[in-house]
């Protein structure tokens, strides 16, 4: 009887050891599947459980004891806060640089850049909520630097996360400022560069340095470090590049 119980406990322990829980900012949700696949080829025995959300929400959850072992944020600020509070055990490191893009279901003339947003036919502009999503912060920054923020702020609709912003941009809003990475997932293939989407002028916003940290809860789980190292490896960086991120 004792042996059976012990056996069960051990196998249960091994089961949980070959699973890692990673909290991933919404903008990475599009690239996460290819990333998982590539990681699996190297470590077939490890299961990855992905929790998606806006960086702000995930940070709040982590602070309140959520069982995540790794956090890939959309900025550096949230991981830095976690590191200061010793909830993150590694110093935040940049795993990718996010890029902001315009997206509209109707063809637009993107050559005018931000001026386009001031036109009458653009009635609703979807941006991520700057309080919870770093891409929203970048969007507001870009709008202000382009000197159109005050003119168009009445038109904003706020997505709770960058992924909700994409939903808005592809359904009811006239245009959205979104994470470029979303454009490379299969359902978005129908949107063409220069017609439906375009890069936002990079000089208008501070580079979106996306930081990654290993969390305290990863203690005793060596697989987490494997994924961490993988994300910084050339293989992962290539995938990220394919999704529109800027990499080292």
């Amino acid at each position, binding site marked *: 009887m004792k042996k059976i119980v012990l056996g069960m406990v051990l196998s249960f322990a091994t089961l949980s050891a070959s699973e890692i829980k990673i909290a991933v900012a919404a903008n990475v949700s599009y690239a996460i599947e290819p990333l998982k696949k590539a990681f699996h080829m190297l470590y077939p025995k490890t299961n990855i459980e992905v929790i998606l959300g*806006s960086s*702000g*929400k995930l*940070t*709040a959850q982590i*602070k309140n004891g959520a069982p995540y072992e790794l956090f890939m944020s959309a900025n550096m600020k949230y991981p830095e806060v976690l590191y200061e509070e010793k909830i993150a055990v590694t110093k935040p490191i940049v795993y990718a640089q996010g890029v902001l893009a315009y997206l509209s*279901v*109707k063809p637009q003339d993107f050559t005018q850049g931000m001026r386009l947003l001031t036109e009458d036919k653009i*009635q*609703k502009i*979807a941006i991520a*909520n*700057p*309080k*919870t999503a770093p891409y929203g912060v970048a969007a*507001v920054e870009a709008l*202000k630097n382009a000197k159109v923020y005050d003119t168009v702020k009445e038109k*904003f*609709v*706020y*997505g*709770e996360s960058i992924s909700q912003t994409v*939903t*808005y941009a592809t*359904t*009811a*809003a*006239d245009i959205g400022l979104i994470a470029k990475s979303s454009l490379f997932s299969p359902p978005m293939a129908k949107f063409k560069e220069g017609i439906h989407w375009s890069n936002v002028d990079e000089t208008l916003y501070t580079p979106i340095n996306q930081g990654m940290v290993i969390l305290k809860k990863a203690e005793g789980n060596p697989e987490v470090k494997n994924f961490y190292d993988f994300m910084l490896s050339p293989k992962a960086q290539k995938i990220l590049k394919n999704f529109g991120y800027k990499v080292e």
Partner: protein
Amino acid sequence: MQEILNVISLDFAPFILSFKLAAVTTVILFILSLPLAWYLSQSNSRTKPFLEAVTALPIVLPPSVLGFYILVVLSPNSAVGAFFEDLFGVKLVFSFTGLVVASCFYSLPFMVQPLQSGFESLNKHMLEASYLAGKSKLQTVVKVALPNIKPSLITALIITFAHTVGEFGVVLMVGGSIPGETKVASVAIYEMVEVMEYGTAHIYSAFMVLISFIVLLSVYIFNHSQRKIGVL
């Protein structure tokens, strides 16, 4: 920018918005539901179970599903949304009007079912006596049926109101969280929790609970007093 956001987050617009939305929805939904509830209560047709099931759907549907479909079907990029915008100049998403429409779907069964139930419990002979007195169906509903189902009527109104105040998932999908227009209290509080402004979240939440409790309490006291007089 942070300062601007702080100031915005301290005002009471979300509450006023929540209660305004609940009030407008309750009134409109009452007018729309009355004929449906009456019809269902008086009908024995084969389509009745089908209609009842459809009416009850919003109870079971996850709010996010409801919100998603409303977003897609009523958006200006869709046929329905474009029609409304072109003809009436009315935006059905990202606007207060859109929230009212969404809330009407969301709270429909909470208005219809108590009314229908109340009507079904009425003495049919009493209604017939009204017809025989020369009153039309509408006059009968307004002057005889409704006054005799006061408890059900109050239940319907209150529950619809409360349900709409507490609405979250649908509003989140369809509203766009626009301050002063679609950022209702439930969304505002959610946002505060997300950014860990717990102090403000506490204040807002306590306020919501207090106001809602006072509203409900007044209604139940009114109900009770009516019963004592023997009016109900």
